[in-house]
């Protein structure tokens, strides 16, 4: 349930939360978040609320990191920035002179509610991100926001307190790691970070690690789709000797998956969360780009539907 509820999905009987708005004629309310979406829908004369807006955000800083990463700091309104402070927040960005096909989902790396700024890191990959590289300081970035489902297993991050946590990040995954790191730190957790810089030589988040991480271990985490021996030894040592309550991973899905299995094998009671790597076009459950069907036969729209990592990383129906 969010301020955007009910959205177009309610109008077509495809709501991801409310049974009454998903083709049933009774309440089966397992996802209650304090407000009845059906009631909101009725109060809104059985229409969806307005969908997310576009904001023109002034570019305050553009930094290049190594070959192909650009880091933008942009100014947002007070409201916009305040809506993006939680771990898992993301936005769609594009160059103002391009059309909606160029909307690119990008995780929030950091927000500053004092100066109302948003920081994002973008790896230059294809035509959408290359178009963004043409933007310069003083220009504007077109932002569609807010979105919040950038982490799978978000509940695990939000509930953990006064514990020890392990965060693993690789490559561009260092950017979405920051809000999770800050949140866990704010809740009095001790955080150990295992960092794999590849494909880069260095890290662009050192200042955050110095401030929020208890310890940083650098290594090469994955090779040809398998956890390396080096990483294997580090994990064994860290998890077995530190009473870890939560492991969070910001990496490619193969590493998210391998790490999840690894942690499960050691101790099933350790909570697990990871970044949401689904491909997205609209972020509003309409385009269908991010849908996954798991062997529990449930269709999930990953742009907005909170899910435990295991339902995304394994058991995928391919028939």
């Amino acid at each position, binding site marked *: 349930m969010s301020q955007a509820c009910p959205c177009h999905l309610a109008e077509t009987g495809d709501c991801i939360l*409310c*049974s*009454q708005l998903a083709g049933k*004629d*009774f*309440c*089966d*309310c*397992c996802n*209650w978040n*304090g*407000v*009845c979406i*059906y*009631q909101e829908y*009725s109060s809104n004369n059985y229409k969806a609320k307005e969908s997310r807006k576009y904001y023109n955000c002034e570019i305050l800083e553009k930094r290049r990191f190594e070959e192909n990463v650009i880091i933008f700091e942009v100014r947002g309104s007070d409201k916009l920035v305040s809506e993006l402070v939680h771990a898992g927040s993301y936005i769609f960005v594009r160059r103002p002179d391009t059309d909606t096909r160029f909307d690119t989902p990008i995780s929030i790396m950091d927000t500053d509610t004092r100066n109302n700024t948003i920081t994002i890191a973008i790896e230059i990959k294809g035509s959408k991100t290359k178009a963004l590289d043409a933007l310069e300081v003083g220009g504007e970035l077109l932002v569609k926001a807010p979105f919040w489902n950038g982490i799978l297993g978000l*509940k695990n991050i939000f*509930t953990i307190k006064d514990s020890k946590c392990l965060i693993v990040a690789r490559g561009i995954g260092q950017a979405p790691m920051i809000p999770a790191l800050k949140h866990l730190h704010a809740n009095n957790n001790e955080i150990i970070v295992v960092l794999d810089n590849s494909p880069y030589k260095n890290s662009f988040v050192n200042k955050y690690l110095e401030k929020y991480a208890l310890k940083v271990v650098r290594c090469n985490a994955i090779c040809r789709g398998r956890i390396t021996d080096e990483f294997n030894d580090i994990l064994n040592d860290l998890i077995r000797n530190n009473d870890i309550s939560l492991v969070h991973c910001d990496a490619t899905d193969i590493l998210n998956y391998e790490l999840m299995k690894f942690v499960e094998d050691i101790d099933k009671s350790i909570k697990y969360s990871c970044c949401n790597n689904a491909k997205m076009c609209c972020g509003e459950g309409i385009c269908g780009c991010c849908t996954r069907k798991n062997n529990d036969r449930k269709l999930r729209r990953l742009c907005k539907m909170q899910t435990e990592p295991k339902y995304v990383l394994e058991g995928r129906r391919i028939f």
Partner: protein
Amino acid sequence: MKVVIIGGGWSGCSAAITAKKAGAEVVLYEKTDMLLGLGNVGGIMRNNGRYTASEEMIALGAGDLINLTDENSRHKNIDFPGHKHAWLYDVNKIEPAVGKYLKDMDIEVKLITRVVDVEKEGNTIKGIYLSDGKYVVADVFIETTGSTGPMGNCLKYGNGCSMCILRCPAFGPRVSISYRAGIEDLKGEREEDVYGAFSGSCKLAKDSLAGDVIKQLDETGVVVLKVPQEDINLDKLKLKVCQQYALKEFAENMILLDTGHAKLMTSYYPLEKLRKIKGLENAKYIDPYAGGKGNSIRYLSVAPRANNMKVIGLDNLFCAGEKAGLFVGHTEAIITGALAGHNAIRNYLGMPLLILPRALAVGDIIAYANEKMNSKEGRTNRYTFAGAEYFKRMQELGLYTLDIDEIKGKVEKLNLTHIFNEKLI
């Protein structure tokens, strides 16, 4: 051996007591901060056939809660239109009394704890999930979540949330546990193909009524006021859950009962119109808070069950109260709850499950309501000892009696005296 009961209304409390008496470890989950659910706004006991049923329960050894409501009665043996020898318990005293009783029996009560899902293995429920994600295992489960609300149902089948005692916006909605376990719920109808029914009464703040009305309520327990001719609405009677109160007298008159508050025997009534009635010029609703707009919607969530209260299709889920049929009333909740609680332990031990004989009103209503659930007409009726179809049947079958010794003798002859007091484990 552990029994988990989901829902702390009258039937859940009753099930907790008999399960405990039979020797189980009992944990009762309730989503709000108070036990008794709609029992906090009810109050009518022992009227018409409920008198017989109450005495049968006492003779069977499950009179604990009846004794408590008796002890906490404000008025005894009062009559009002269509109803004789009613006892009215004080809604402002009963909840703490029941809470203390369960505590003294060493029953664990978890308040503000909402159950949202189950884990199943084949047809056996292994555990339940709480809304905060916690997982709880047990041997047998009893669902007494009722059939009232939540908000979406009250909106779809009624006039929207009227802010009743269940306080869904604050404590979250009821979740049908049997449905979560894969068993489709059955629905009651108030008219052909119109589902659900409105709760049948509301509460006015007694202090907001005229002095002479308060005085009469305190002294006699009942006040009958005339409804202005232009406001008599006979159509509204069919919206009501409580068909025993769906009488012409209840449309032409405003009937108030003293249960600590002033119980108004109509499902809802626009405040502006209510205040046109002499004595109610300054009346104010206290349950539901928006009683001028609507009332809670019920009977959308009945589990298919056998006469031993076991849910059909599952090995270890029992049900009671409104979850178990189109029952109305506390007494009806208490009897079904008692049987479910007792049978939960028999089920665990592999013993034959108890079915109350039809020679007793309490056994007959459980079987009769179940039979009726199978027919379309049956689903538009409600079943209560207090009136309508079932009280008529009780009288015809000779099940209705006020003779306590006769009731005791009948139970004795059936060899069931104090059966619910037996420790099985």
